[in-house]
């Protein structure tokens, strides 16, 4: 394989992985606070649809991005209200959100075009690739990393920022404590419910942004079920990444790569079925789950937040 081909595959991989990574980072923040949001697929679809509709009508990409984040945050707020305030079952609430989001995005996608016509098939504004001056000239690296769209560059900044926030700042420490042991966090004066609301909504906004990258950059335009299961892959990625933003990059590149390579392999007439490649992310996830469940000391270091999915209530008579 020539170096140029490798560079172009890597470039496509990064583009394919970006929407996954936004959603994964968002879900990591949410799950670190102890809230399991299985509504990612629905939120991502709504983000993608609303981003495209808003950008189409306003002509502004950034209006599209902002709309996607607002819609993602609003949907996550529903989940937050159900699971934090009402202490509903988070699995049920999240699954409902996925089904709701898929249905609503499809429905609105039929109406939000000009004259209440469908959005499907329209061509709107899209994020163009923007070679970074200087950096894009670096051989190989420039080709794969620095000839991307703005949302990809934003991701380059977001990942280290989230990592630093999580492990090196006071609010990051509080976030980790809230998801691990909310009772202790509460006794230490941390606003547990407030933190859970904040990170659930923030996570939803990032998931919405991931959707926007799909409809405004990676595969511009809107069709039903545009995400094609990426929301679910992101949930699997959170486990694969063991709730760490840097490991999430590895996972997103890997899974994005599978997606990117798959098209080329099909074009090359491979005998490996596409369904097999699509299955791989989930196989990896199962393997990771087995490892972290088997090994207790390992879980303490890198495993799921201990209070993940468990509602918190202060006054319990015991």
């Amino acid at each position: 394989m020539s170096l140029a081909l490798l560079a172009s595959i890597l470039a496509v991989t990064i583009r394919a992985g970006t929407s996954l990574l936004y959603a994964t980072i968002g879900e990591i923040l949410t799950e670190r606070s102890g809230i399991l949001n299985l509504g990612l697929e629905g939120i991502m679809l709504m983000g993608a649809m609303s981003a495209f509709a808003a950008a189409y009508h306003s002509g502004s990409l950034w209006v599209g991005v902002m709309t996607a984040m607002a819609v993602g945050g609003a949907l996550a707020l529903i989940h937050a209200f159900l699971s934090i305030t009402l202490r509903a079952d988070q699995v049920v609430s999240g699954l409902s959100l996925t089904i709701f989001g898929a249905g609503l995005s499809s429905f609105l996608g039929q109406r939000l075009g000009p004259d209440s016509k469908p959005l499907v098939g329209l061509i709107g504004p899209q994020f163009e690739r923007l070679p970074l001056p200087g950096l894009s000239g670096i051989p190989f690296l420039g080709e794969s990393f620095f000839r991307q769209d703005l949302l990809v560059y934003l991701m380059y900044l977001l990942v280290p920022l989230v990592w630093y926030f999580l492990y090196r700042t006071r609010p990051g420490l509080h976030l980790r404590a809230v998801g691990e042991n909310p009772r202790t966090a509460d006794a230490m004066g941390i606003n547990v419910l407030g933190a859970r609301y904040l990170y659930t909504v923030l996570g939803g906004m990032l998931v919405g942004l991931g959707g926007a990258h799909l409809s405004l950059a990676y595969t511009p335009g809107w069709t039903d079920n545009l995400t094609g299961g990426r929301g679910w892959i992101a949930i699997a990625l959170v486990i694969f990444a063991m709730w760490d933003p840097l490991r999430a990059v590895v996972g997103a590149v890997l899974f994005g790569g599978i997606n990117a390579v798959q098209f080329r392999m099909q074009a090359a007439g491979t005998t490996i079925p596409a369904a097999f490649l699509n299955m791989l992310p989930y196989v990896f996830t199962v393997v990771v789950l087995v490892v972290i469940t088997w090994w207790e000391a390992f879980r303490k270091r890198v495993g799921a937040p201990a209070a993940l999915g468990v509602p918190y209530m202060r006054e319990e008579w015991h």
Partner: protein
Amino acid sequence: MTFDHGHNGNGADVVPAVRMVGIVKRFPGVVANDGVNLEVRAGEIHALLGENGAGKSTLMNILAGIYRPDEGQIYIHGRLADIRSPRDAIRLGIGMVHQHFMLVETLSVAENIILGLERPRLRLNMSHIEEEITELSRHYGLQVDPRAYIWQLSVGEQQRVEILKALYRGADILIMDEPTAVLTPQEANDLGRTLRRMAGEGKAIIFITHKLDEVAAFSDRVTVLRKGRVIATMPTAQTNKAELARLMVGREVLFRLEKEPARLGDVMLELRDVHVLNDKGLPALRGVSLEIRAGEILGIAGVAGNGQRELAEVVTGLRPVTSGRLLIRGRDVTNYSPREAIQAGVSHVPGDRLGMGLVPNLPVSDNVILKGYRKPPLSQGPFLDRHAVVRFAQDLIQRFRIDTPSHTTPVRLLSGGNLQRCILAREIVAGRGLLVAVHPTRGLDVGATEAVQRMLLEQRARGAAILLISEDLEELLALSDRIAVMYEGEVLGIVPAEEADVESIGLMMAGSRATAVAGG
């Protein structure tokens, strides 16, 4: 165990550090605090004495901002305080060391100590914070590595982290909820010295306890709570154990149980060089050998987490051994299943009553048949005979005096003492002379404790062999014929109960060999 009882405050004219007036706290169906008044002075160690359920922890959780009182006022250093959250309490200089530690296992010691603080604003400079903690721990004699993760620490070390956490926040009112429950007698003494030092610096120390010896050993003044009300507050020097016990329970308490001399029979249970791994795959029992004869109670002493739980699990078939042998009535049953243990007549009173002992949402009747339901008369083939079940349950409710509205009441609604009666009823009826009892009286009030202890002695008199695991040394000394002390998975020594004393057992619990205290 004597301490200087002097303190800085000079009497009632000094503004108290804490004054709680007319505190009322209601929970569904319970009045936990019923008009409680409490006054604690700066520079004193104040014991809060009472039985389980007397409302001690509730009162202190109110002071620490965990619960909101329904009525009453709190004055801190003479000023009316509105404590709405733990954050408010911390700001007022109130620190609480909870019975169940408030620590995040996956975070480091230093991270736990700064948790919830408003300083630093954003970036954490851990090395600077770690230095501060090291200095603080040196000053108070609370040794702990600030870089270690909580899950790597022993219970005693975790408690030190909790105290440091309060001190780091500048607490001058420190609440300790049953601080010695998890400590060896020696560790408890060290803690006493640390508390005395803090009181000497003018801090107000409140410690919750139901142990009378600790009140005498550690406190300057004592407040006795009973059923949510204050019964008395007095200087410790002006009272005695008997009076405190009477105030606490509301009647005279006998400190001795009647125990007949043992009539030993054949060896019922024998362990030969048993090795076992714990849940983490680390050695939990390392070459344990012991035997129990019919008509004998063998007590197991030790600080929690030294292999007691695994020992009980081996005998009841819940945990496989990696090497060694287990014999019941001389028959090799090594690595049998829980079902085979039941068939061999092993009774099990587990430490976790509602988790392992009973099914909380099932009625009393279904819980008491859990061991016998496979056989007639309770069942015919695959079908339960409901009439027989009800008769059986009603019989046990009567015989074991289980206080329940009916046999259909879900057991989760019963009190701790009645839960234990349910378990004992089922286990004794289904067993055949070998009983494993883990913390059988933990968390029970004095009355229920007495009843459970009587039942155990009654079984002993009937020739049962009993393996008694307990964290309560007084109980072990009162009930056991012999006491084995476990430390890090080994039996360090087995002493006859009449020759044993708290001091020498305490030393062994901390890891020194029986030879060091021979003849003690």
